[in-house]
């Protein structure tokens, strides 16, 4: 199971957190409606290094930013 470090509470299992993607709409996309649609439904879903946000729902209820490799689930500095 994945473990994440909350800056306030310490190392906790991923079950305590809620995931949030940082939407990465491609820069080539300019039409506001297309951008909204992309943010709503479409995903980069990167196989590799990602930066993401997690909400520590079961603890301090604050957000943390995590760098992770989605191929191995290892946490990056």
């Amino acid at each position, binding site marked *: 199971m994945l473990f994440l470090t909350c800056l306030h509470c*310490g*190392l*906790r*299992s991923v079950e305590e957190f809620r995931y949030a993607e940082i939407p990465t709409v491609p820069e080539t996309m300019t039409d506001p409606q297309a951008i909204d649609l992309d943010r709503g439904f479409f995903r980069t879903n990167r196989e590799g290094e990602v930066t993401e946000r997690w909400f520590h*729902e*079961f*603890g*301090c*209820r604050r957000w943390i930013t995590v760098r992770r490799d989605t191929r191995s689930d290892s946490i990056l500095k």
Partner: protein
Amino acid sequence: MLLIPSTTLPASAPVVEGLAGWRVVADPASLDELSGTLPVPPPSAGRGVVLRFAPDDALVLGENEVVVTDPHAIVEPDTGWVSIQMTEEHALDLIATHALWPAPPERPVLVQGMLAGLSVKVYLDGNQSMIITAAPFGLELEERLGT
């Protein structure tokens, strides 16, 4: 309003009790200061304690009033929490069996996380301890811990 959690030592079956305190949302520096000015716990001695939920968020127990230096602080009575009081030994035992995180060595300490699938905060002061959860989950917590 005197906000002191129960100091009754548990018999064999601890029960959930309402916990009334002050919820203080303020800048972290003023909360650090507040922790410094209040007498050192344990609350079992009937004195104040600052439970730091987050850098800018705390629940203060055992105080008649709370004054912080942050002029924009929000200080409100908060009765949304319940606690189960128990010996530290018992609390450590529950953490060992129902949580995926270790109890920190420092005392006094507030540790937060998932215990038996519920969101809890455990306060350990080397003597008395309490497991705190949001009021709606009190009975559920009691059942799950089988206390």
